[in-house]
């Protein structure tokens, strides 16, 4: 089955938006880290995601072939045009919240990128290979933090448990597939996220158990990111991020 260019572009932009929005949240930690070492480590991860976003946007621009650039996608679109999954845009919260989110996303991304490496689309496969290498390091780090916080002090344990409760309902969306992504999978280009769920659940459960954290119950779920139905937090990300481009349109920087 073949897919057309506009479908492919929409798919690539989804992956780009995911990476950009979480990079933004991670970058907010710069000069706010719990230690100087951790400040630098968070920036490292932010830089990796930023790099990933730029590769995906660059590829989307190439597919579009209409003069779009990585920056027009990042800076000229409004809230409803962004299609990142909601988990990435949630405010950074405390360090427990940031690491809880990061761990859940890292587990997902590593599995996702591993499969995307086999995409019939060579550009996506190449980006996925790079992302996969970085992802191994990201996951090792975030998993270690979950153990330390979960099995650290009573305070860190409680903060991490609370963070998990607050994030859990946003993980459902990671494993949703719509018609477009189904078509992309059938064309041998994308990844069927539904298939990733059992292993993800198993690995997350193992880590949380080791971290003495209770796996939250899956009795709530918020979705909508792929349709541009966001939390209210995204608009504020954009008003920060896009300020200069909006105030001085059409300039070089």
């Amino acid at each position, binding site marked *: 089955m073949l897919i057309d260019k506009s479908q492919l572009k929409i798919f690539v932009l989804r992956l780009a938006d995911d990476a950009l929005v979480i990079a933004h949240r991670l970058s907010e930690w710069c*000069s706010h880290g*719990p230690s100087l070492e951790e400040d*630098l480590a968070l920036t490292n991860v932010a830089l990796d995601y930023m790099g990933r976003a730029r590769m995906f946007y660059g590829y989307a621009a190439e597919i579009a072939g209409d003069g779009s650039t990585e920056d027009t996608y990042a800076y000229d679109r409004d809230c409803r045009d962004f299609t990142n999954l909601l988990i990435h845009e949630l405010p950074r919260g405390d360090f427990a919240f940031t690491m809880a989110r990061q761990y859940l996303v890292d587990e997902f991304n590593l599995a996702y990128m591993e499969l995307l490496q086999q995409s019939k689309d060579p550009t996506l496969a190449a980006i996925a290979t790079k992302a996969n290498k970085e992802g191994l390091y990201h996951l090792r780090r975030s998993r270690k933090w979950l153990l*330390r916080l979960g099995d*650290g*002090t009573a305070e*860190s344990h409680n903060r991490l448990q609370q963070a998990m409760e607050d994030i859990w309902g946003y993980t459902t969306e990671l494993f949703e597939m719509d018609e477009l992504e189904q078509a992309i999978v059938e064309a041998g280009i994308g990844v069927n996220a539904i298939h990733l769920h059992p292993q993800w659940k198993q690995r997350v459960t193992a880590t949380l158990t080791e971290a003495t954290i209770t796996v939250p119950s899956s009795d709530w779920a918020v979705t909508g990111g792929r349709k541009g139905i966001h939390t209210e937090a995204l608009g504020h990300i954009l008003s920060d991020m896009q*300020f200069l481009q909006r105030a001085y349109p059409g300039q070089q920087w």
Partner: protein
Amino acid sequence: MSEEEILFQQRIDAELKVEPKDWMPEKYRQNLIRQISQHAHSEVIGMQPEGNWITRAPTLHRKSILLAKIQDEGGHGLYLYSAAETLGISREELVQALHSGAAKYASIFNYPALTWADMGAIGWLVDGAAIVNQISLQRTSYGPYARSMVRICKEESFHQRQGYHIMMVLMQGSQEQQAMAQDALDRFWWPSLMMFGPHDAESANSTQSMKWKIKRKSNDELRQKFIDQSVKQAEVIGLKIPDPALKWNKAREHYDFGKIDWDEFARVIKGDGPCNRQRLQHHIRTHNEGAWVRDAVAAYEAKHKKQPTRAA
């Protein structure tokens, strides 16, 4: 002078490096701790004005460069804290001294980063001034400090270039962008000159520091070098240095420049700069907010070290 002190000075005069285990006069040690820790704190506090622009950087490319640059500065802070620790003081003590006000950081960071052009001015001028100073410190007499300067200088020249490039692109842009760049230069020029410290005649710590070769060049020499290089760089991209007295002096082969407002310098150091309170409070707040994380790491490590390991 004691015999030890005489020998120490002889080694310094022979350009031999002092290493952590060597005997050194207590004042040499104290002087170095003061200077290295002030340098380390400056790197770390300096992350704030630039960090303030990460989420608002105008392109993804600029955003990545800025993030990497600030990360470098944090890394510089780390090397320098380690260099200070070789003198027998802990990082916790150094940070406490910053929080109590006993230790200083570069006063330039008490000025606000108001527009995007400030990212250009800071990289170009503030990192530029830092490099001029740090190049001379690559030959400082204390080994760990000298070696950390070698490492740091390599990264600083990239910082300076990216800042200058921001200014250059703005100067090639719209009138508003050009005005933004000029305004940033106007605000950061004089504070950058103050980064080199008081004139040699008024510099309290200088004479002994030069004798011990902690400092290798005087404040005024370094300042002059910085002015000479910056004037040309400004001209090339069409920026005007905000100093009507600036003039090439053929006889000296240097630029003459106007009077530095040392009252302002004193005012800002004393605490009346636009951002003194915010900078310090940001650091204290972040440090305190991170306490539970650091406690968690300590608790986790204690628990997992205790687990009995059975001998084979």
